[in-house]
């Protein structure tokens, strides 16, 4: 915070010392009218400048960045051969070294980034439908909801909905015969991953802790 104020103050001081053109007389307001500056007289000595740099300069500049330029004029280096340059350095220094490009294979990324961001149910942005379960028959039906929003706690008729999983792998659930009992046994690793068909191939299963907590 202090740095920001200091920066602004320093900038203000610097600019106010530079601004001398309109210190006397009126300060133009460009919203209303912006006075044109008088066009400077054509300079008498204006002429085209020809930039002619000696060839040696260029060679020195290039040699700073590329070693081959350094060797270019080395008349005493009898080993210099542009077609075999970098032979001893391998492929990365000499494109002619290998007859074909080098592919690096068998690289395994052990810890890939998870690129899943904020999963959201897009259907919830469109929904006007509601699943209602008949408690007697157990049948479900889709009905058009009367109000899209419920912003009051004075609900007279609060029909609860039931979510039925559409899992493709029902083997993962261990069904119980007792009413409203929540039991779950994770399947073994191999069956879990083989039957998933999902994008989890790069991960490992995470075991759920016991229900009683840690």
């Amino acid at each position, binding site marked *: 915070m202090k740095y*920001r104020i200091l920066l602004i103050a320093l900038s203000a001081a610097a*600019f106010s010392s*530079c*601004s*001398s*053109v309109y210190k006397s007389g*009126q*300060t*133009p*307001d*460009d*919203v209303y009218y*912006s006075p044109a*500056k008088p*066009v400077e007289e054509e300079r008498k000595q204006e002429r085209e400048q020809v930039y002619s740099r000696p060839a040696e300069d260029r060679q020195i500049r290039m040699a700073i960045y590329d070693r081959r330029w350094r060797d270019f004029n080395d008349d005493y280096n009898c080993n210099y051969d542009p077609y075999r340059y970098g032979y001893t350095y391998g492929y990365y220094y000499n494109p002619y070294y290998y007859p074909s490009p080098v592919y690096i294979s068998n690289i395994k990324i052990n810890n*890939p*980034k*998870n*690129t*899943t*961001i*904020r*999963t959201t*149910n*897009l*259907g*919830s*942005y469109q929904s006007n439908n509601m*699943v209602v379960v008949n408690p007697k028959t*157990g049948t479900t039906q889709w009905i058009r909801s009367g109000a*899209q*929003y419920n912003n009051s*706690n004075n609900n007279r008729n*609060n029909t609860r*909905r039931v*979510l*039925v*999983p*559409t899992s*493709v*792998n029902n083997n*993962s659930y261990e*069904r119980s015969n*007792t*009413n*409203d009992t*929540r039991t779950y046994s994770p*399947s073994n690793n191999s069956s879990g991953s083989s*039957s998933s068909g999902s994008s*989890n191939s*790069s*991960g*490992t*299963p*995470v*075991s*759920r802790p016991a*229900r*009683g907590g*840690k």
Partner: protein
Amino acid sequence: MKRNILITFILFSIQAGAQIPEDAIRYSWYPQNGTARNLAIGGVMGSLGGDITAAFVNPAGLGFYKTGEVVLSPGILLGKNTANYRGSLTENKRNSFGFGPSGWIQGFGNKYNPGQSYAVSIGVSQVANFNNNIYYSSLNNYSSFSEQFAEEFAKSGRSIDEVLYSNSSMPYTAAPALYTYLIDTVTVGSAIQVKAAPEYILDAGQALRQEMRKKTSGGIYELALAYAQNNKDKWLMGATLGIPIVSYKSNTVFTESDTSANRFNKFNSFTYTDDFKTSGAGLNLKLGFIYRPQEYLRVGFAFHTPSFMMLTDTHTSTLNTQTETDSGKLANLSVSSQTFTNDQPGKSRYFQSSPWRAILSVSYVFREVENVKKQRAFISADIEYVNHRGSRFSSNNEEPTEDEKVYYKGLNNVVKSIYKGTFNAKVGGELKFNTIMGRLGFAYYGNPYKDKQLKTNMVLLSGGLGYRDKGFFIDLSYVYNMTKDVNMPYRLEDRDNTFANIKQRNGQVMASIGWKF
């Protein structure tokens, strides 16, 4: 038929994860920022010109410059929110620093054509300020935050094993909820159901205590490189190359708890914490012209292309659940989303384009004369159209999966269906007394939601003073921003949703200091 295809498409698409529709509106629905002078006059700049704000609105306005100028615009935002969530009112405050358009403008004459001039500018501005605090709390006897996780899992077509994975497809939502038993599968009779633990409270006709805290920070900062040309003060044309830099951070803490003393109703409380960050940069183009049919009168038009942005999201969430065992004991379980994202924060790279916008404007300037003592006043009005439904998302992964492609297509369709184009109107004027100026302005920003039950808008009242003499100018402004907004803590597909009505009362103080040369 089309609707059915869309619904099918969306139902299928929930399997994948990526961005959410709220990301679209964040980068398009915000009040325009400007210099203190510009803010004081309601932000009108579609035809007025002569201010660095023109580089961010209608670059043709820079064409009025035949002089040079450097300007700095520091500011402060004093924010206050009142939230009404299910009948309970809560208040929260947040102050933050920011800055308006700051930079350099230089006008040049054309020595070969005295009637022509041109101007260039380099400027930077905080285009949008995301600093905000939202807090609300209330009882809810209708739905639970956790139901969205149950819904997502139930409709995913995946088993618990498939979701509980170190590289899960639902690492921030269903996976932590399943891990901590916030949601689970239950057998009722012979049927398996997915149920969230708080639903037992709701089933018994009791209410849950819900509390939401969301702290956001950051903004969109835009670097503008502008060029404008003035032909005999009759036609002015300009273009700005904008480089928006996005930095957004949010921390959301949602708590839900049992309000009863019953220790045998399976649920006591949970706290869901979500840390989210977006960063990236993009490109946009602003094109405009101003026509002066006669002296004093200016008519302007500007078009802003969408900002094409490359963004990266970093995301982590934690869930702490306290359930009740059959013996009435409390069981605590806590997990971080990193358990499901290979022990590191999840990252997603994507492209997002913001909506295009068009501005039509007219200004009347009394006394466009060189002698500043005779300059009297101006009045100006802008009308702006913003196509909020035009935001688009696409993956920036090297090899996007089929699920990802389907999700993005579904997401774009949702953006098109829930948002709409809006008109924003601004009007403002100035009275000038030699070196002292007084200003007033008004601005209205329309509702970007198609749903008429979501009533949102922004009304800005502004005023300010200015002083200009001895090659120096200083402007001060105050903007009172009254924003009506909505905030949905969660969304459910098969049940009515709930939301909080947010009333923002922000005061913005801006100062602009400049030097002429």
